[in-house]
């Protein structure tokens, strides 16, 4: 009985999560500039357009650049912070940690408005580095979460063992801690990267159309004329996300990276 319950539940959730994508994928295959589902025929021309029309591939490149640097910044904040939290007892580290985790406790629109206000005050509104930095700080939460899980799973006796064999702080980090948390670091980087790639409201409020990212471009198309290219791009986005997360699942143990217990 509970097996049927489980199957029904899984089917419902999977259908719910996949249904919009199925429709989008179908729409992307229309040969003409219409948004029919099921598609009127079969054509990959809109995927071609996504790669050949500078109106589409420039925002894509912008998004990839922003996501790469933003994820690097997120990781550069999260790694030392989570390490200090785990290794030392420093009074104000908790406050910094709270700032790192807080973005997800705020309505996203407020974070975006804060970024807009900050860059106006600093008179750099619209410049590419603003979205990189704001994304980096906003998405720090993700590597912070994965690294904290990783460090919690790290048996403190491993560190003690290294110390009895002569290793001190920096060496322990380099030879034991870092190799151990590397999969968690990678997972955190991927999460931040993929979320930055998809983030709309902060990008819209910091750089808007002056350094157009893909979500901003798609949103503009959503308001000023639908096109099957949007569907093609959406499918590609989803594919990139699935591929990256599947890669993380291959390299590391996904359940463990997401906070399940350490056991076989």
């Amino acid at each position, binding site marked *: 009985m509970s097996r049927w319950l489980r199957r029904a539940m899984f089917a419902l959730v999977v259908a719910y*999560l996949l249904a919009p994508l199925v429709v*989008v994928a179908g729409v992307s295959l229309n040969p003409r500039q219409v*948004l029919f589902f099921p598609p009127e025929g079969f054509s990959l021309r809109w995927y071609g357009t996504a790669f050949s029309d500078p109106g589409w591939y420039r925002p894509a490149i912008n998004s990839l650049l922003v996501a790469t640097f933003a994820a690097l910044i997120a990781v550069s904040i999260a790694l030392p912070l989570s390490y200090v939290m785990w290794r030392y007892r420093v009074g104000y580290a908790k406050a910094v940690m709270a*700032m790192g985790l807080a973005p997800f406790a705020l*309505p996203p629109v407020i974070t975006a408005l804060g970024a807009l206000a900050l860059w106006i005050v600093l008179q750099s509104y619209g410049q590419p580095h603003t979205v990189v930095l704001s994304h980096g700080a906003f998405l720090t939460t993700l590597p912070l979460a994965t690294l904290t899980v990783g460090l919690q799973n790290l048996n403190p006796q491993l560190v003690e063992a290294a110390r009895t064999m002569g290793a001190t702080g920096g060496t322990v980090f380099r030879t034991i801690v870092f190799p151990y948390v590397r999969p968690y670091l990678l997972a955190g980087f991927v999460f931040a990267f993929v*979320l930055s790639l998809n983030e709309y409201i902060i990008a819209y409020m910091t750089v808007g159309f002056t350094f157009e990212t893909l979500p901003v471009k798609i949103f503009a198309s959503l308001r000023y004329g639908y096109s099957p290219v949007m569907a093609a791009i959406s499918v590609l986005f989803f594919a990139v*996300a*699935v591929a990256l997360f599947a890669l993380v699942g291959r390299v590391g143990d996904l359940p463990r990276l997401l906070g399940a217990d350490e056991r076989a």
Partner: protein
Amino acid sequence: MSAPAARPGSAPAPASAASSGRGDGPWPHVLLAWPTVALTVLFLVPLGIIAALGFFRRIQAGFFEVAFVTDNYARALDAFHLERLTVSVVLALAATLVTLLLAVPFTFLLTRRPRARQVPYLVLVLASLSLSEVIVAFAWSLLLSRTSGVSNLLVAIGVMDAPASWSPGLPAVLLAYVFIALPLAVLSLYPTFSRLDQELPEAAGTMGATPLAGFVTVVLPLVRRAVAATGALVFIFVLGAYVIPQTLGRPAQWTMPVQITDQAIMKNHLPLAASLAIVLLVVSSLIAVAIVALGTGRWPRLALPRRAR
């Protein structure tokens, strides 16, 4: 079985790897320098600016000038905006409730599966979580449209006479809200659920509880903290969404984020946007705290007499 932890049972074991703080030297502070500066400038300062901005005066020529006026807050709290606020909160609460009703049983059942079997579902959940709100809005607008939506499917199997458009509208907004919130909720519940001792519901089963009764009497009380925290997280996340209500909603469903963005970008009225944001922040925090209190405050008291026995 194996030896009980050999560490002094009564004495507090030295915390994980945290050093006593003596002789650490400048290292922790050097390491913390960049995170502290970055997060202060990029997170705390912007919040401070917004808080101040709400009292500034808008000027036509530029963005704003420093002042101390209360008109922005007066407008943020007028009848129109209070109605928008109410709509936002009610929509977000409804979406949160539906999300939890789906996410709690799903996550529980998922974590009872072997680890390797969980991976494809986790990948799907992660990929859905990362899907841009813009793409989600686009996808649901297609799914609910007349030309390419499910209504065509229903016509084909004879349930409906003619295809209909369900977007924009309230159902579209709620469906899309739950769609973006569900993956977040699953991932937020996942650690607690997967650490839940598998034998506890089994033990309940040996004492005659049906799976459902075991879930309600054993599992739910153990995870209520995580569920409440997830509820708060989802509520805030949905409450702050902009693209979905803007794209999939009619004006009746335009929420606070739509108003804030409208004022900040279209109308160039940053002080009003800031005061709206502060109102939203205060209300969302209060409700989030209430959700957590509601989830954790009641049940422990019911459990007290049992402990006293």
